């Protein structure tokens, strides 16, 4: 076959369509190539930008230490030939007919479909003005918040003391805010994913550096005419605010998959190979995927950590390519070791494994909670996660437990040894 004929043959072949052109989408395109898929790939993304790195949006880039332009991922050379449809939204999918519909009216027929549309920030349904209220998910969001925080001496109220809320509170203080208050209905910051021991240590560190907290507090409304001037709490307290940041969790972007009989109750439910709805030609990756992790059990969960887009991309691309090329699956069920970090003020949280699964049995493995320390999370007596809190050397201590976590046999019910 000459070159021209080869090109024509390729052009006639339906593509793998990747819905969502961010980290998980890009990594999947790269991993499709690594797995041997030579056919066309189309990435459809509603943001106008090439994929970029989000963690700095609440840290370095928000603080102005890194330019927004520098956050763009450098794609692997292997994806030089994929087609990017940026500024384009997927509005519907018909999995029986293998088509997706785009907001420009176009339709794409696919050989394989990758759901990589991620999350959007949840908004508080409270009444009040909209101006002056920010979220942090996209470059556009972070630009807006940076401009607002650039006016020094402001009063900043961060609603939601989770990861992003705590990071933004620290960054706002560094940028010269006069007052930063974090509000949360729970009694401690980040207590959900990290448990009491770490949450208390975090609270203490934030308070010592000047962040105030309104904990066990519900937000019921916003004050102000045209722009927000205050945050109203259930007990009647009003926190004066020049800038409000809502970091109260996220909602999965799954509406485009409605009507296909899928379980979309929290992201897209997948099987142990990240396949969706029992179909071999549809996979989900990144924040949107709700998958069982054979390392732990059979419960499907979404994991919003930076490590997951890359891990899911690799597995899903192998599975999808095996199906498309008829070579059959040769991989073990998906069993990633989740990892995350969070930089706040001058300290870092570093986690390996699944601390949320071992909160009933938390032990200090190194150091003490008054200073830098390392905590181990256990389930059924076995180590399932480690989290360090402190300077860089403390993170290195956490990393030393990584091999031990990887070596643990699977804990899943009914599993016999489990995947390596």
């Amino acid at each position: 076959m000459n070159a021209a004929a080869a090109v024509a043959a390729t052009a006639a072949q339906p593509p793998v369509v990747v819905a969502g052109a961010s980290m998980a989408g890009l990594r999947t395109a790269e991993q499709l190539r690594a797995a041997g898929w030579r056919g066309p790939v189309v990435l459809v993304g509603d943001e106008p930008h090439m994929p970029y790195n989000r963690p700095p949006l609440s840290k370095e880039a928000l603080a102005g230490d890194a330019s927004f332009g520098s956050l763009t991922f450098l794609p692997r050379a292997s994806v030089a030939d994929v087609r990017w449809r940026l500024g384009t939204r997927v509005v519907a999918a018909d999995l029986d007919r293998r088509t997706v519909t785009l907001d420009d009216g176009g339709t794409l027929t696919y050989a394989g479909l990758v759901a990589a549309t991620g999350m959007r920030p949840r908004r508080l349904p409270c009444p009040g003005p909209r101006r002056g209220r920010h979220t942090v998910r996209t470059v556009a969001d972070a630009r807006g918040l940076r401009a607002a925080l650039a006016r020094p001496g402001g009063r900043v109220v961060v609603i939601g003391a989770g990861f992003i809320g705590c990071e933004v509170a620290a960054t706002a203080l560094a940028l010269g805010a006069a007052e930063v208050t974090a509000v949360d209905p729970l009694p401690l910051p980040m207590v959900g994913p990290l448990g009491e021991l770490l949450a208390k240590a975090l609270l203490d560190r934030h308070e010592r550096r000047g962040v105030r907290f309104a904990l066990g507090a519900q937000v019921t409304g916003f004050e102000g005419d045209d722009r927000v001037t205050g945050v109203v709490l259930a007990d009647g307290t009003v926190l004066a605010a020049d800038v409000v940041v809502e970091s109260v969790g996220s909602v999965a972007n799954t509406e485009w998959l409605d009507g296909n009989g899928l379980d979309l109750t929290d992201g897209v439910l997948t099987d142990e190979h990240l396949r969706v709805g029992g179909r071999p030609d549809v996979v989900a990756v990144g924040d949107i995927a709700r998958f069982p992790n054979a390392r732990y059990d059979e419960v499907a969960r979404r994991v919003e950590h930076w490590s997951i887009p890359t891990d899911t991309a690799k597995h899903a691309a192998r599975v999808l390519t095996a199906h498309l090329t008829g070579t059959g699956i040769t991989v073990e069920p998906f069993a990633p070791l989740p990892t995350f970090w969070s930089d706040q003020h001058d300290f870092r949280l570093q986690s390996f494994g699944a601390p949320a699964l071992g909160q009933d049995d938390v032990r200090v493995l190194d150091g003490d909670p008054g200073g830098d320390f390392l905590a181990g999370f256990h389930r059924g007596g076995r180590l399932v996660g480690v989290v360090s809190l402190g300077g860089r050397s403390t993170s290195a201590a956490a990393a030393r437990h990584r091999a031990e976590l990887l070596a643990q046999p699977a804990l899943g019910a009914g599993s016999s040894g489990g995947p390596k």
Partner: protein
Amino acid sequence: MKVVVDMNKCQDHGQCVFAAPDVFRFDDDGHLVHLPDADDTRREEVEEAADVCPLQAIRIGD
């Protein structure tokens, strides 16, 4: 294959050390060191290391 690390960006996350232990390691003072010229058989590992660097500080030159 040339392996280029922007040490101004590096924040010692160490993910590259897990992905490509033959090319990246920490020295006794906890600073990252790497082989600037890695054997081409290590390409996949190094590409993985570049992927998992949270600061996107690793580049492969040819």
